[in-house]
């Protein structure tokens, strides 16, 4: 446990720092509808670094950093100008208002990436280091990095707090004078944050920290303050959960945190949906659920029909049911097949346990914590390889038995499911439509407004 703490403490701190500023900036990004602007900035900063390398500066030198900063500022100026122009045209009724900001962001990203590739091709050394600026590995952060990043973000956070009125008005709608200047300030500080975050955590993780807390906040709350609180809660919780999961189940840390973000957002959205549904059910009775029930019944019908039509394909729902209750599978096997099934299961359990034991032995030998003479080492290697094949073979036997069962389940399970599901879906859908027609139109509007 102490080792886990030692390994995880800095990454968790780094993630908390990221969550703090990105949950806030994400609100702006979401409100402005510039979802992928962080990717564009990360790429522009990488281009700046590549240009610094081309000019003969060492990576990590002050000169290289100022290159990245200047490029980021140029990107910020471009985004600020384009946005102002677009609004201007919209007011004047010009043609450019049909170009969304996302298009400009995408173009900047693509062109910056292409220019980086071309520069890296010309470089005397070190293309990989630039690439690593975009990948980042949160496990590798150092204490000074975390402290420096926290200080920079605290400063930027303070600036944003001091001028919160014009910045919030710009993003969430409102009257502001000197739009261009405020827009530039927003994009420039945003660019600085994203660039240093990406170096620590990589584009994938930074994107998740930026967007997911903001979306979770928007789902739950309508005020900026409420969204920020929800966003911070989600960001902090996911940081700890995701990194712990990475340790517990041996997963790549960045990917684990991003996936946890996805899972948590799905849970929040699911809970949100259930709350909305429950409210409607209280108002209209169980009939409110007929729409969703129709969808579920439709899915059952499709799953059954698919099993009947293509029994050889993957049917994960049936696999899951068979794992929970093996009888779903064994009823469809002959007496002999059932014996083979049990034997293969036992053989896999035995073989896997033995493989685990021998693999641990092989690792010990590799590290020198256990001695083994060369001949026995070679025998261990060969035994591991061949035993691995045998276990894989047993798994193949199980897969074959399952395929046999599928062909028998085809008509006994698949067809009835398809028919029952289709009938239920049809009935429920008619029920839902009848209900909608009978509902007064005025009431519908009233509900929406509420």
């Amino acid at each position: 446990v102490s080792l886990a703490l030692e390994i995880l403490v800095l990454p968790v701190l780094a993630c908390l720092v990221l969550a703090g500023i990105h949950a806030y900036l994400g609100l702006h990004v979401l409100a402005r509808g510039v979802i992928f602007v962080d990717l564009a900035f990360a790429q522009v900063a990488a281009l700046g670094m590549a240009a610094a390398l081309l000019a003969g500066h060492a990576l990590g030198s002050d000169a290289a950093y100022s290159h990245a900063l200047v490029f980021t500022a140029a990107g910020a100026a471009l985004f600020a100008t384009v946005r102002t122009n677009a609004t201007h045209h919209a007011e004047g009724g010009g043609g450019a208002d049909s170009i969304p900001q996302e298009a400009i962001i995408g173009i900047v990203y693509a062109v910056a990436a292409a220019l980086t590739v071309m520069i890296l091709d010309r470089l005397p050394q070190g293309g990989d280091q630039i690439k690593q600026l975009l990948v980042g590995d949160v496990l590798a952060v150092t204490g000074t990095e975390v402290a420096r990043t926290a200080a920079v973000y605290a400063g930027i956070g303070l600036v944003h707090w001091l001028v919160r009125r014009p910045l919030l008005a710009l993003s969430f709608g409102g009257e502001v004078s000197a739009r261009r200047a405020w827009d530039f300030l927003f994009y420039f500080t945003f660019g600085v944050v994203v660039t240093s975050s990406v170096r620590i955590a990589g584009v994938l993780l930074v994107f998740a920290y930026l967007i997911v807390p903001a979306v979770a906040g928007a789902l739950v709350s309508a005020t900026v303050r409420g969204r920020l609180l929800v966003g911070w809660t989600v960001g902090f919780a996911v940081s700890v959960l995701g990194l712990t999961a990475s340790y517990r189940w041996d997963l790549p840390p960045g990917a684990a945190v991003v996936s946890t973000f996805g899972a948590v957002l799905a849970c929040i959205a699911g809970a949100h949906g259930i709350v909305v549904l429950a409210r409607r059910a209280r108002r209209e009775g169980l009939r409110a659920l007929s729409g969703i029930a129709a969808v579920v019944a439709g899915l059952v019908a499709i799953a059954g029909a698919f099993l009947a039509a293509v029994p050889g394909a993957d049917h994960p729902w049936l696999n899951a049911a068979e794992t929970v209750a093996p009888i779903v599978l064994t009823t469809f096997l002959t007496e002999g097949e059932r014996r083979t099934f049990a034997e293969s299961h036992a053989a896999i359990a035995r073989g896997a346990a033995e493989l685990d034991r021998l693999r641990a032995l092989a690792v010990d030998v590799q590290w020198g914590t256990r001695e083994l003479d060369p001949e026995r080492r070679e025998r261990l290697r060969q035994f591991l390889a061949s035993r691995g094949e045998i276990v894989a073979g047993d798994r193949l036997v199980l897969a074959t038995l399952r395929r046999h069962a599928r062909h028998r389940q085809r008509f006994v399970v698949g067809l009835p499911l398809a028919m029952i599901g289709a009938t239920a879906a049809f009935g429920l859908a008619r029920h839902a439509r009848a209900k909608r027609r009978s509902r007064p139109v005025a009431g519908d509007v009233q509900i929406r407004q509420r």
Partner: protein
Amino acid sequence: VVLPLLVAATISVAATTTDLRDLVAAVGGDRVSVESLTDPRHDPHAFEISPRQLVRLREARLLVRIGLDHEPWLRRAVGGLTTLPRDLDASRAVMLLGTETPRLRAERSAHVHAFGNTHYWLDPENARPLTLRILEELSALAPADRAVFEANRARFIARLDAGLSRWEQMLRPFAGARVVTAHDTWPYFARRFGLVVAASVEERPGVPPSAAYVARLVERMRATGVRVVIGEPAAPAALLRRIADRTGAQVVTLAPSVGSDSEAVDYLTLFDVNVRRLATALAP
């Protein structure tokens, strides 16, 4: 009028890596013009062929490649050619390591190189069979020059032998030493010089290791007193440094290919550089 004739008289060869290019040049001398299609400073798996290299490939009468799954881009590059050059898959010339991938893939353990580890040029002893195969191919294209090729190869082998005894002598004091590598690049090199690769930091290049894996690695390194982590230019430097800091080990960056480091200018200096750096790092 004479110049184009002279140029035409050389055999145009395309090698996929700088290491193979050097071996071809060592045998072919001034009778061949050989160029590497890839730049060792870039990731060989994510390589994109440029128009000039495509022209090179089109003109080549012999293609020398690492083989196995080292050049996933090559199939597409060659696909557009109407006449194919002679093809030398160098992996057929050497004994491969790391071939025991299960045919039935049921295990979840990662294996980057499904057909065997591709870094076989990092055993200098392998240059012997490799140059022999190159000699055969070149002689088939220019039978009249066979004697020249044989003389060139003999000269190269003499220098290689001198190098081998020099390198083996430098690393002999550290025989049996355990090292941790960034990627699974060094099994051939380690076997030749009696080192033991205890583990790799990134089992799959580009996929960062899990926190638990790093923790186990650190624990093992501390327990067994591993003192050297072998990095390479494409390795995640920050992660290696952090692991080294926690274990008191030292990161030594080796050059996996000719030209991936400014000091490693040809096939023999590649080993001079790597052996010298490794011996310095392993010295107590």
